[in-house]
């Protein structure tokens, strides 16, 4: 990798002089500004393009809390290499075009050493190639669409399961419990939100699973739905008409709430109803649907190794600080900062461009066990810098207003009600 240092720019400038005065006029401001902004990094700034307003704002707030808690803890212990971490959030409203502007600002004006988060897959899909172009390490902690780490970008890292991995725990449960109990082909219905996230789970997770196991499962109604509809009852009536044994939803929060309420209204039931993370793993879905999702399962990134003492301590700290139990988003965000902090230990340079490259190499070398599980960025099966996180998924179930991890058995907090 070639670095552009102030001296090399000076050298280039000498050649440019002979060419054109106009070019000089354009370059001079950069020469003046570059050494000042680039070397004045007394802190490590971490840029987070997050939805702080708009429909995704509730999620942006979760990640803000998670990052803040982790950064406060690290800074209280003196930071990394004597430098404090500083979070710089820029609001994307979860809209890719705004996220692109946000990231350009974070990298070129705020001089962040790394980018983190983004929440929505659609946003991350726009940010990843830009981060690559700007040679700024981008650590994904929640955007899960598989394609994002399948484009060969060496600056893009992901610590959590991809969408295709979300349903791993549910699939395991379907085969080992649901099918084993019934011993005859099982009728399934699948509804997924029509956006990058929903299509990712459908394309890389649920549909390949049903295709592979078509001898045991028959997928009937299988449809994408629009996220902002007022009325899902026509769709739910159609599902009811097919009387499936298993219903799977891939939903965000608001659509998940309405689907839960309206499924109850039209009297849609099945032996097993499961979401695939996202909306169905959020506490809000239970409360705001008036408990309509009682008994629903949700398969997605797990909430960490809930049996470990380190996890239990963290959960206690989180509740003390924020007053509610953490879920998948909170642990992902918290651990992402820890991973960045570990990788930042190998950053010695004062120049931000060099820092970014040192961090990229540091991330590539990072191997650590976190409260979320093991983290190591590998290239495999078409993925680049992806944590092999198949095992970091769990099946939860809403029982009495709380989402309990019920599968796989080794991390189950209680037995599934099935």
């Amino acid at each position, binding site marked *: 990798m070639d670095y552009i240092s102030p001296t090399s720019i000076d050298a280039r400038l000498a050649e440019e002089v002979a060419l054109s005065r106009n070019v000089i006029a354009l370059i001079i401001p950069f020469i003046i500004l570059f050494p000042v902004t680039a070397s004045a990094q007394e802190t490590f700034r971490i840029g987070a393009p997050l939805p*702080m*307003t*708009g*429909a995704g*704002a*509730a999620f*942006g*707030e979760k990640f803000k809390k998670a990052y803040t808690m982790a950064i406060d803890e690290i800074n209280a212990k003196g930071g990394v290499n004597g430098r404090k971490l500083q979070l710089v959030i820029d609001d994307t409203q979860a809209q890719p075009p705004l996220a692109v502007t946000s990231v350009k600002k974070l990298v070129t004006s705020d001089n962040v050493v790394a980018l983190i988060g983004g929440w929505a897959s659609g946003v991350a899909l726009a940010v990843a190639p830009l981060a690559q172009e700007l040679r700024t390490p981008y650590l994904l902690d929640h955007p899960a669409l598989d394609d994002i780490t399948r484009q060969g970008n060496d600056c893009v890292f992901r610590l959590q399961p991809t969408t295709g991995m979300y349903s791993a725990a549910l699939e395991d449960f379907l085969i080992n419990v649901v099918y084993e109990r019934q011993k005859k082909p099982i009728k399934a219905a699948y*509804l997924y939100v*029509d956006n990058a996230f929903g299509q990712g789970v459908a394309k890389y997770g649920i549909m390949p699973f049903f295709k592979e196991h078509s001898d045991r499962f028959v997928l009937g109604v299988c*449809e*994408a*739905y*629009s996220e*902002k*509809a*007022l*009325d*899902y*009852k*026509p*769709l739910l*009536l*159609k599902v009811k*008409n097919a009387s499936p044994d298993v219903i799977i939803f891939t939903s965000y*929060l*608001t659509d998940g*709430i*309405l689907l839960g*309420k*309206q499924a*109850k*209204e*039209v*009297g849609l039931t099945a032996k097993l109803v499961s979401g695939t993370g996202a909306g169905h793993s959020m506490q*809000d879905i239970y409360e*705001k*649907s*008036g*408990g*309509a999702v009682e008994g629903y399962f949700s398969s997605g990134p797990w909430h960490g190794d809930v049996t470990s003492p380190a996890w239990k301590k963290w959960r206690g700290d989180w509740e003390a600080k924020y007053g509610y139990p953490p879920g998948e988003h909170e642990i992902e965000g918290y651990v992402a900062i820890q991973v960045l902090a570990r990788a930042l230990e190998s950053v010695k340079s004062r120049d931000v461009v060099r820092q970014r490259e040192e961090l990229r190499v540091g991330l590539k070398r990072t191997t650590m066990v976190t409260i979320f599980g093991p983290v190591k960025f590998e290239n495999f099966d078409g993925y680049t810098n992806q944590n092999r996180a198949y095992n970091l998924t769990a099946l939860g179930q809403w029982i009495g207003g709380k989402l309990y991890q019920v599968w796989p058995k080794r991390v189950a907090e209680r037995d599934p009600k099935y």
Partner: protein
Amino acid sequence: MLLSSLVINGLFTGLIYGLIAVGLTVIFGVMRIINMSHGDIVMLGMYSAWILFEKFGVSPYVSMFLTAPLFFLLGSLIYEILDPIPLKRREMSSLIITLGISFVLATSAMLIFTADYRTVTLPYSQRVIDILGTRLGYPALISSAISLVLMCLFRLFLSRTHIGRAIRATAIDRTSAALLGVNVKRISQATFGAGVVLAGLAGGVLAPIYYVYPFVGSNFIIKAFAVVVLGGMESVTGAIAGGLILGVAEALGGAFLEHSLKDIIVFVLFLGVLFFRPTGLFGGRERNR
């Protein structure tokens, strides 16, 4: 069985679409103002229902009438901003100004209520009733019934009362109405107020069946425009019919086509009506102004 359930369901949803749209219709009909902040006023209606329910336990179906005077006031105030614009330039200028008001309302709600989603869960929200083999939740049923009653009352108000006739006269011809002794400005202001009250009431009926967050208005505005265009720009009956058509078309489309394609139905209907009957299904002939 499935078909009848879909149609019944679509009709009930359609009544709510109608109520969302009727305020927009009357404001456009009388004042040629395209009120882009209509959806955000619905949002305010939902928030006020939510607050009164959370803090004082008042059912949205009651509180929506208690807050109606405040919405009338809000409407009158917004009208004061729009009134000085000459009638010729009103359609475009009002569109931009009300779009600005829309942003102000949504971002103010964001500051006050934060971005969290809020829902109103009534004690009977899980109870359902069976109508001709179709299960309907109590809130959906009550919301639809109230919507129908409100629209019928508003229709009667326009046809049977003195003020109602003055509103219609103003809509038909401002100059003649003025010559006949109608105080056009006051009537316009009252109409805007009434339109905003209807939007607030729509928020009240939506609160128990939908969710509210500061930007939820954008979910309604396109549908409301589609209903207005379908039914005719100035007709309350048209808004009811437009709402019902949209509700049923969406229900059938959502079940028999891909659900994600159902918004296409809205726009195809929208364009079809504009093309073949630009004044809407129930609109009068194009008038010279």
